[in-house]
């Protein structure tokens, strides 16, 4: 008796550039180069490691997947008889294949979409299906900045099984992040938040996910929002960085914040959305300004990743005392004792920000965090 349906997408070239030092696997050129350098794809083995954890559901689980290297092989290697849909050119799969596969699986109403890949794959899936169905990533790419991945394939398999068995029912929004690989190869890190995918959550398991989070975290965001809203005054302009924690604040104010952009609030209204540095500099002219930011994606970075619009110049003008850092306790704990950090691109500003900072973690609750640069 089939009780649950699992969608499976393996991005066969994910991670291929890693071990040969290419800092990523995006683009046909790089993939070719990687193969020439003797790279071995990582994702099929990792997908198998995850599926091994779900084997006990064999009789009740239908796996729906794409042919050959995009999932069928991994499923069969674990003894499943998958339902294979779609068609691909073996050895030459493209991001488009991932996108179409994801859309088809949404159409077939799978309960969970499990994919093996990296940040690029997560982006492809996000662009294809948004928050349509629950998704979980098996980490197999070179770049894993997104929070949609389990720490390792075993955790991914365990969490998927608990979700499919109904032992985990909660879902949370997790960041889809990626960095510009071209810039990364020049040693310039420029991370961007692309959006959110819905992933299953279980406290115990998510502890070991890259970004710890919980339904408790949702309540924490709500509490943080109440704390901030209580102190928002009409005399100040508020620059609000990206993130689910900051979005909870604007939601509490009844405003519709852009998901990944920097927005500006003044006297209870959203006066500008998705602004860039020069717009910010114009807006803050002659006003009292506060910046509200949250560390992104469990890395602990407050300035310089995903919110570069809030530039060193903007930070200088606003001043350290007018920066409000908000974070759920879960997110701070996920740093495992590592400090928060800044990398604005301006050493003087970085030094100004480093030391100890207060972080709002709930209603009337703050922690003192070390900030390094």
């Amino acid at each position, binding site marked *: 008796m089939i009780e649950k349906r699992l969608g499976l997408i393996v991005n066969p070239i994910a991670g291929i550039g890693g071990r040969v030092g290419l800092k990523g696997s995006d683009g046909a050129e790089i993939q070719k180069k990687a193969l020439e350098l003797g790279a071995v794809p990582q994702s099929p083995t990792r997908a198998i490691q995850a599926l091994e954890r779900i084997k006990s559901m064999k009789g009740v689980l239908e796996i729906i997947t794409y042919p050959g290297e995009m999932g069928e092989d991994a499923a069969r290697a674990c003894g499943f008889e998958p339902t294979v849909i779609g068609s691909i050119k073996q050895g030459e799969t493209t991001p488009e294949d991932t996108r179409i596969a994801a859309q088809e699986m949404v159409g077939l109403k799978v309960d969970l979409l499990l994919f093996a890949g990296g940040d690029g794959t997560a982006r492809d899936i996000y662009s294809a299906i948004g928050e349509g169905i629950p998704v979980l990533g098996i980490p197999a790419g070179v770049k894993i900045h997104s929070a949609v991945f389990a720490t390792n394939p075993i*955790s991914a398999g365990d969490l998927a099984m608990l979700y499919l068995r109904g032992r985990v029912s*909660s879902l949370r929004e997790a960041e889809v992040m990626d960095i510009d690989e071209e810039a990364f190869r020049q040693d310039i890190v420029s991370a961007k938040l692309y959006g959110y995918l819905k992933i299953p959550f279980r406290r115990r398991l998510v502890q070991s996910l890259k970004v*710890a989070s*919980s339904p*408790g975290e949702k309540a924490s965001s709500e509490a943080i929002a109440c704390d901030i809203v209580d102190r928002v005054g009409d005399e100040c302009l508020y620059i609000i960085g990206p993130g689910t924690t900051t979005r909870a604040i604007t939601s509490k104010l009844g405003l519709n914040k852009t998901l990944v952009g920097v927005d500006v609030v003044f006297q209870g209204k959203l006066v500008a959305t998705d602004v860039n540095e020069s717009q910010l500099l114009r807006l803050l002219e002659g006003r009292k300004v506060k910046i509200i930011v949250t560390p992104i994606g469990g890395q602990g970075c407050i300035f310089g990743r995903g919110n570069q619009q809030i530039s060193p110049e903007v930070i200088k003008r606003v001043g350290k005392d007018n920066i409000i850092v908000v974070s759920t306790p879960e997110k701070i704990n996920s740093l495992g004792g590592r400090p928060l950090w800044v990398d604005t691109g301006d050493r003087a500003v970085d030094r100004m920000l480093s030391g100890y900072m207060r972080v709002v973690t709930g209603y009337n609750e703050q*922690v003192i965090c070390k900030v390094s640069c």
Partner: protein
Amino acid sequence: MSQVITRQRSTDGKPKLRRFHQARWDEPIIFELSREGQRGILVPQVEDEIRNEVGDVLATLPETMRRKQPPKLPELSQPQVLRHYVRLSQETLGTDLNIDVGQGTCTMKYSPKVNDQLARMLEMTELHPLQDEETVQGILEVMYRFEQILKEISGLDRFSLQPGAGSAAIYTNASIIRAYHESRGEAGQRDEIITTIFSHPSNAACAKTAGFKIIALYPDEDGYPDLEALKAAVSERTAGLLITNPEDTGLFNPKIEEFVSVVHEAGGLCAYDQANANGILGITRAREAGFDLCHFNLHKTFSSPHGCGGPAVGAVGVTQELARFLPVPVIEFDGSKYHLNYDRPESIGKIGPFYGVAPVVLRAYAWVMSLGAEGLREVAEIAVLNNNYLLKKMLEIPGVSAPYAKGKRRIEQVRYSWEGLTKETGVHSEEIGLRAADFGVHYWTSHHPFIVPEPCTVEPTESYSKDELDEYAAILAHVAEEARTNPELVKTAPHNSTIHTIDHTPLDDPSQWAMTWRAYLRKVRKEAR
């Protein structure tokens, strides 16, 4: 799979772990057992003669105070109620049943039964809190004398035994701190309480309930409270510091005096959370570290049964300067008589009903008197020795670590981490605990959210023998070995114990959690009230 489990049940004698199997009743909630019309006692009808004489007994009760509907209590017969609770008792791993060292921070020590017998004496149970003081001199003397004992143990000058819990004591301390600042005209300005992330979580929770903003400090690289972070935190808004020492990691803060002086210099007061003083009795005192306030949990350190096992007292101690703010009543002795003094204009007021929880004080008094001063110190010494013996045994288990302060000894407990084992096997700390239940022992991870990854908190107290500590360590070593050889067995545990695993998510979600039957009907079953 089931064959493997059956085989594991006997444990094959390797290691020599006991064969344990718990009762499993799948007992419903008492409200679900209710059937309309079932009764435990049929109250006899009033005889006509009496009815005629008395008339309608409810007539004197104002209409507005009468219920329109009878209360929705469960309807059951006496034997049904009896069976229900006996079954529930068989489905728990209580402290009288297991080697209860796995409930770290809770000090699950043995509470001598003779003290329970004292508390159950008619002289105690038949006391009425509204009796004239003249007629309750005995219990007032016990409470007065116990206050003198606590003064000696802490070095502070005056105590209140009013608060009915550790959290109530912390709330009391926070209220006293506010009253102090009020008396100096600074209450509006000083609205921040500082604590540490490894302090007892009630410090943050109760001070917040008392209306303060909470600033928590994370530990430094060595796991000690970060003094530099404290310096960054204090200001003219600092009302006080509420801190536990040793912290939940079992580490004693060696800079505690500096912590106190930094806060004093900023104009704040310092309260020492000694809910669990089991490792420091007779060794360190709040006074010598410069604290202004402290509290003890009589139901932890002082051996009275704890938590759901019995009622509680959080005894609050203060310096002479703060004594005027203590809750009412305090117990005074004029040389011949004891009396309850309510005439204290600067008091924060009433914090518990009547005298507080008198039987708990009686048990604690009996416990201290049976040990004497040297005995109290010996309690601490054995508790610390036991803990460090178990620390060594635990660290011999591959995959276990004791984060922070590597190589340092701990005081009365340790927060361990199974992170190494989890990375190797995919088995998590909670699952190890569920499997440990198959061998008849209780196990606890940590407060949430976890700061130590894959945590496990063990506190042996002075009550357990070396053999018992060896048995506990052997059980965890065995489970860790199973995690390597047969992770599925551990991940599907418990097998010999009562309860299957449950989804914890509703516990974290206000829209789903249900503390009462009525809340359950409304939130979970979506039934109208």
